[in-house]
């Protein structure tokens, strides 16, 4: 019987024009690649399998391809918890994997199939010991790397360590193990660009501004720059806070200099370039767009962390009205389970030697969701939430419920921000005056709530600014020809297990009934009390 727990089982099929439960009709494949056969003969080493995409991929491998010969998973130690302990206590009990493990025959069955190695991509040889390498040599056929620092603007060393040096360590062990490589990157390595982005652009030496001047880009030079900047900043900074802030700025400025929108995409691109310039390496680079809640697997609406559009959806739910987005642009998003399926399809292709070097995993090429529609959805969610809200100011709730969201320009945004800050300044001045006249006791609580309001507003502003490159400054459509062509080469039996079908997503149903509800359920609790969630 269906309960509210399984709300996602009702799916609107936009093609057929009807609700349906379960899977739609299967596709026909040419059978040039057999994923089932390829996996049955292969051992896979998974790096970064503990993240948002990683766990879904892991669950999908266990659930859809039980034939896989062996799976080696690298798990980082966490304080006192060893990698292995962490995998069995923390990772397998996650909502993504709990039911899957049950279905796959319980923990005992997993232990038979899976080998855990402790390690860290930030360390040479990814933290694997020479004995471990020796034990795995010649046995691992494919290394799948999902490790990465996904923060947009962390101190530059954090990004470099994982996304650049991590890639070097990755390549080292892939060569030592004599394996093939599937490396997960991001679509946005394209940088500040507009329009259709091809999968065929050369990888080595790429930088977004390369058509604007004669400069050349090379990773070795960037590593030199990095050493210099680290040295200088360390010497000139007085405390760790200042150091972090300066390193953060240094990364963003360097990214900006070459035409990337942030440190994340800049360092990710270098990781790709290191992979691509390695001679004799069989590799595929997977570039997902903005990864969002799952569409179907392991259940609709699974979401984790803040690197998706979750902060925006949560702010919309809180009643933010003005959204600076392009009226004619899509938001390049892709559900996490489609990303996992795309990765598995690419893995099969690499194992069979029939792969392309780059796979974009994105939706706008086939089925774009335009930004103004999303702004509309955010408004409707706010209407629903604030109409039934019993706490808080009633007038404010009514405003948030009945005033619609609107698409605004960046100029309007700046003007509104200035007005809000002026208003707050006036209130602040009045309260300070009140403090001298009436004494501290009466005014202090108001001053405190003013400070809180300011902090909230500033957080909101920072979040919006981080997303501006994706929803206002640039408008991307990432071409996805490679994954579509490769998916068509699978066998019909494979296509019952994995498919690439973003064209069948009904965005209205997805956004309203799957994504928004998923975020409210899985992310909102963390957002409300990040400290508690971390503990």
């Amino acid at each position, binding site marked *: *019987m*269906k*309960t*509210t727990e399984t*709300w996602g089982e*009702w799916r*609107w099929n936009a093609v057929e*024009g*009807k*609700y349906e439960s379960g899977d739609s009709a299967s596709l026909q494949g040419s059978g040039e690649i057999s994923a089932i056969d390829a996996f049955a003969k292969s051992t896979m080493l998974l790096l970064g399998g503990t993240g948002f995409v990683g766990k879904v991929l892991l669950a999908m491998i266990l659930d859809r391809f039980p034939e896989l010969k062996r799976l080696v998973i690298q798990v980082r130690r966490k304080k006192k918890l060893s990698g292995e302990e962490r995998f069995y206590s923390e990772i397998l009990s996650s909502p993504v994997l709990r039911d899957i493990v049950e279905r796959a025959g319980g923990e005992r069955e997993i232990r038979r199939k899976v080998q855990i190695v402790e390690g860290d991509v930030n360390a040479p040889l990814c933290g694997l010991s020479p004995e471990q390498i020796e034990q795995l040599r010649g046995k691992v056929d494919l290394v799948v790397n999902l490790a990465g620092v996904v923060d947009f603007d962390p101190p530059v060393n954090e990004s470099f360590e994982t996304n650049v040096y991590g890639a070097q360590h990755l390549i080292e062990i892939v060569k030592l193990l004599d394996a093939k490589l599937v490396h997960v990157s991001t679509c946005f390595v394209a940088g500040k660009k507009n329009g259709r982005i091809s999968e065929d652009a050369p990888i080595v030496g790429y930088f977004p501004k390369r058509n604007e001047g004669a400069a050349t880009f090379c990773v070795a030079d960037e590593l030199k720059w990095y050493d210099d900047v680290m040295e200088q900043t360390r010497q000139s900074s007085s405390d760790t806070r200042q150091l972090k802030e300066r390193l953060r700025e240094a990364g963003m400025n360097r990214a900006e200099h070459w035409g990337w929108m942030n440190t994340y995409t800049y360092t990710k691109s270098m990781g790709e370039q290191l992979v691509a310039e390695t001679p004799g390496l069989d590799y595929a680079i997977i570039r997902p767009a903005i990864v969002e809640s799952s569409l179907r697997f392991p259940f609709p609406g699974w979401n984790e962390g803040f690197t998706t559009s979750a902060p925006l959806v949560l702010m919309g739910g809180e009643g933010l009205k003005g959204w600076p987005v392009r009226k004619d642009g899509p938001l390049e998003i892709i559900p996490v389970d489609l990303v996992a399926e795309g990765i598995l399809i690419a893995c099969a292709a690499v194992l069979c030697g029939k792969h392309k070097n780059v796979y974009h995993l994105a939706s706008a090429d086939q089925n774009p969701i335009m930004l103004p*529609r999303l702004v*509309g*959805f955010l408004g*409707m*969610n706010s*209407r*629903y939430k604030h*109409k*039934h809200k019993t706490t808080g100011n009633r007038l404010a709730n009514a405003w948030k419920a*009945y005033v*619609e969201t609107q698409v605004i320009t960046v100029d309007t945004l700046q003007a509104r921000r200035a007005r809000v800050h002026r208003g707050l300044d006036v209130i602040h001045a009045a309260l300070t005056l009140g403090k001298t006249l009436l004494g501290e006791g009466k005014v202090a609580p108001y001053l405190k709530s003013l400070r809180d309001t300011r902090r909230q507003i500033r957080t909101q502003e920072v979040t919006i600014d981080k997303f501006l490159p994706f929803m206002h400054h640039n408008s991307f459509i990432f071409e996805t020809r490679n994954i579509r062509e490769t998916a068509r080469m699978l066998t019909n039996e494979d296509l019952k297990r994995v498919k690439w079908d973003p064209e069948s997503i009904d965005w*209205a*149903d997805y956004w*309203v*009934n799957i994504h928004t509800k998923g975020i409210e359920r899985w992310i909102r609790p963390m957002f409300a009390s990040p400290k508690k969630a971390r503990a």
Partner: protein
Amino acid sequence: MNKAAFYDLSGTLLSGNLVMTHGYYARNDRSLLKSAYQLAKVVLSVPLLFALDLRSRARFNDFSFRAYRGMHRDRLIGLADDLFEVTLKPSIYPQSQALIQTTSELGYRNILVTGALDFTIRPIVLHFGFDEVICNRLEFKNHVATGRVLPPLLAEDEKARRIREYATRESIDLTQSCAFSDSSADLPMLSTVGHPVATNPTRRLRRIALEKNWPILELREPSSQFPPFLSHAKAV
């Protein structure tokens, strides 16, 4: 062979109807001014709808769906949960949930057969836990409703036809199945099953039910008895 319980929705399980649904969407248009204009249109159409309802349920549905013309599909889907909370949930009859639970426990597959629109009944389906839905769908062009329903319009004889079709496909024994409806417009639907139940019947349906010796059920009253074919098994 499987057996199924076919449910009509409005008037049977809850008092909300098509006009209330449309009134909700009219009230919640993008701005207050637009909402007022849309609401005025709905209010003016009410007498006409009453007149049409007396003549033909199909014509009534046809006309009432025309009011959706020009509405964006995003909005219809985006506000469906609120529609349910505000309009439909409060109008659910006290015994509805218990009845659906009973048929489910007795091994009937619960199926909603309604003239209402797919997006409006989604929260209802989840609330009651229906296994399957047979309903109307609007036609959209470029995400905007044309005001027409995708044919064939689900009402009267069409409901019975779809039930028989479903039964054949899912190998369901209709003589062992039951159906619940409040209106004589659903006579064809009630007549296709072995156990028809006149539920909160209109005066006309009550007369027919008495003639045909069908059980009559009142979901509006908390103390009403379920028909023997359900209560017998319930006692066990």
